[in-house]
């Protein structure tokens, strides 16, 4: 029971953290390529994937995209960020499972950023009906520095989480 409460608090904290990070990000100047962004909210997803189960991480992604779209965006934004968020979560999960301890959050977050972009481009392609994939090479280039930043931040945070025993994967 104690573990359940701890876990619940941790999940809520990750959702809140992701929402605030996407808000802070929206205050910063945008990168002038449609779809490109820093992806701070991915820090929360990365931490979720390494400390919680896939199902719980999925819930965190859905909760944070729905909540931040309602608060800071609109239904249009929700469609893009939900598709991108879910696709990137699945991609990051597979990379973590596949490479296990051979990969750090840096590589995982770059892959996550790319699949987030792919998800958004698929929605844009369906909604706007144009060949928008010409943007993908430029988005790949942007994904490297932003992924490095998000990855290093998450590596750093994870050390503290391990120190304070926030790992629910072993507790189940």
């Amino acid at each position, binding site marked *: 029971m104690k573990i359940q409460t701890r876990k619940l608090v941790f999940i809520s904290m990750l959702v809140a953290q992701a929402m605030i990070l996407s808000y802070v990000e929206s205050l910063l100047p945008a990168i*002038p390529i449609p779809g490109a962004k820093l992806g701070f909210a991915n820090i929360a997803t990365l931490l979720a994937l390494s400390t919680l189960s896939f199902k719980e991480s999925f819930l965190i992604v859905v909760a944070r995209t729905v909540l931040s779209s309602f608060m800071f965006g609109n239904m249009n934004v929700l469609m893009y960020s939900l598709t991108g968020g879910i696709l990137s979560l699945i991609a990051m999960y597979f990379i973590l499972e596949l490479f296990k301890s051979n990969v*750090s959050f840096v590589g995982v977050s770059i892959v996550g950023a790319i699949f987030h972009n792919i998800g958004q481009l698929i929605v844009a392609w369906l909604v706007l009906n144009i060949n928008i994939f010409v943007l*993908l*090479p430029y988005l*790949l280039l942007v994904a490297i520095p932003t992924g490095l930043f998000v*990855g290093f931040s998450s590596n750093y945070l994870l050390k503290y989480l391990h120190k304070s025993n926030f790992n629910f994967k072993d507790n189940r």
Partner: protein
Amino acid sequence: MKIRDIWIIVIVLAIALISIFIMHNNSESDIQTKMVIRAANEIYDEIPLTEDTNETINVETARGLNKIKIENGVVSINEADCPDQICVHNRPIDQVGEIIVCLPNQVIVEIVSTNER
């Protein structure tokens, strides 16, 4: 940072650079091009592009206004009333396949080839 991280970075970088290189090499200079403006999924206007096309087009829809400028055949969005201004900051385009998108106003400016395939 671990060994697979570096793999991932190198692979992504290679794919990005190769595809940008291919995209730029495919655009030949003698190709006839036109600019297609789409607003809310419908074609708003089409203008053939040459090296001395100079024009300003105001795209007014229910969602907002975008001012599109063509200067010597190079297309850019001059002014827009959208909140993010991403389209205004987009670099000017003149190659086939390049696009400028204004998501909030649902305006897309695209350069397409008018040559028969």
